[in-house]
């Protein structure tokens, strides 16, 4: 089972980096990607923080399966509190960055503080260095990449964050699969990162990612590629709603959360282009099989749903603490309809303990 996954706590103001191993308990409760990111955000983000301030934090995460045969590229997930909604938000960036970050030695980067000048973070083989990069954001993506690669040819993938003229954040993922080029970030997470004066994240690494059952995963993926059809991606008759200690959650949201935890776009169809299907459906059994073969972590459908529910509950409890109100429009409406009120959800014995997030009680109450 994988045990060498690491989190880096990056203080941009002081240019300091602290690293922590990801415990097995954390892996089992949240897997990785957006799951661990949500936990870290709840743990580290100050109460009622201004999204544009230096106190806000941004988390860059690689998915649990990013870089493996099940998701060779995977997706990087960026989590922060944004000014767009005043709530926790995420942005998904496809491309080789997530896999590159894992091979550079880190699963999650927790960015705190604000850099004095426009800074590029270089992540390489277990080290993170700070590089002032004035004018980098004025260049186009390929030029930025060329500038960074000229200084260090080992940089193989990068994620660049800039702000456009209107102040809206845009992410540029270099070398993104299928849709090479820019990916507009509508969540506002890029703007939160730009407020920290981070203009680029570049990574390069040679760290090998261990595979629990190499021949097993080859045979499994080969079988899926050769026999790919829609029936493989269909779940059984699923209930549309999942009930839990903190109220009801839509099943589509459970699947979406799991996709972001694993850092894959689609687990039923690895690339989602064969036979004209879009491959957006997640199959729980296939996800469990792939986790087992790649990492050795044995999970079943129920446990996967539990993990996704836990992540959604954490996010919603955080949003309730920050004060979701009618000004948030549809989000506030959804919370009310599903019974997600502060009174109903923020309860230690009834919600936090059954969900195994009682270590966050002091932070979220």
């Amino acid at each position: 089972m994988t045990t060498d996954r690491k989190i880096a706590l990056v203080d941009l103001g002081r240019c300091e980096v602290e690293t922590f191993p990801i415990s097995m308990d954390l892996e089992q409760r949240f897997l990785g990607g957006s799951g661990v990111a949500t936990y870290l955000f709840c743990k580290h983000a100050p109460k009622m923080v201004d999204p544009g301030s230096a106190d806000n934090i941004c988390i860059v995460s690689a998915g649990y399966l990013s870089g493996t045969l099940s998701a060779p590229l995977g997706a990087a997930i960026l989590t922060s509190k944004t000014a767009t909604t005043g709530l926790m938000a995420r942005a998904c960036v496809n491309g080789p960055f997530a896999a590159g970050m894992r091979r550079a030695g880190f699963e999650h980067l927790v960015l705190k503080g604000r850099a004095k000048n426009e800074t590029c973070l270089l992540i390489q083989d277990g080290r993170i260095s700070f590089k002032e990069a004035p004018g980098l954001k004025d260049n186009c993506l390929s030029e930025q990449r060329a500038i960074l690669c000229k200084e260090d040819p080992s940089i193989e993938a990068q994620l660049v964050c800039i702000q456009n003229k209107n102040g809206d954040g845009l992410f540029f993922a270099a070398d993104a699969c299928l849709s090479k080029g820019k990916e507009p970030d509508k969540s506002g997470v890029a703007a939160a990162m730009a407020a920290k004066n981070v203009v680029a994240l570049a990574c390069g690494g040679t760290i090998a990612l261990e595979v629990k059952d190499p021949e097993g995963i080859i045979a499994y993926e080969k079988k899926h590629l050769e026999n790919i059809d829609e029936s493989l991606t269909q779940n059984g008759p699923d209930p549309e709603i999942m009930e839990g200690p903190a109220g009801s959650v839509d099943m589509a949201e459970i699947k979406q959360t799991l996709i972001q935890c694993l850092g894959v776009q689609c687990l039923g169809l690895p690339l989602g282009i064969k036979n004209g299907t879009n491959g957006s459906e997640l199959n729980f059994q296939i996800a469990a099989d792939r986790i087992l073969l790649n990492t050795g972590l044995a999970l079943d459908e129920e446990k996967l749903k539990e993990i996704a529910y836990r992540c959604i509950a954490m996010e919603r409890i955080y949003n309730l603490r920050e004060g979701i109100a009618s000004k948030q429009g549809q989000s506030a409406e959804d919370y009310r309809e599903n019974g997600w009120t502060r009174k109903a959800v923020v309860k230690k014995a009834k919600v936090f303990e059954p969900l195994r997030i009682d270590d966050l009680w002091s932070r979220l109450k």
Partner: protein
Amino acid sequence: MTMKILISDPNKCNGCRMCQTACAIRKAGVCNPEKSRIRVMEMDECDQYLPLVCQNCEDAPCIAACPKEAISRSYDQVVQTVIDYNKCVGCKMCLNACSFGTIGFDEDRGRPFKCDLCGGDPLCVHFCEPGALTLKDPTMIQYDQARVSALKRTGMRR
């Protein structure tokens, strides 16, 4: 004994790296593109990817460059250049000589590695979902290209 070469089509490759990851797992047991026998080159200028493997050149520079005569041409299952690790001293001359940069070096074992076409059934071909990788008889390549060209012309006339 058959002479087959691995052909890659940059127009079909979407840069997914399934081939690279599968190869690294099969050959080294880990997910690491550095250990893969296939390299996916990114061509920023034309926004394309080009998967590259050992071309098993007729007049292979790696064979000429090897001071220990550790690289030779094999005619067993498929025609290819092979490295005799009993003779190899890990001098990296073959890496320098290769025109395509498709010979890698295993730092852990101190020896070079190259594509062996998986004994005639390359794993990367199975993992190439867009069909950018194909194993072909070189004598048939010209006919395949002629067929594509003919189809295009016929289509134009219609």
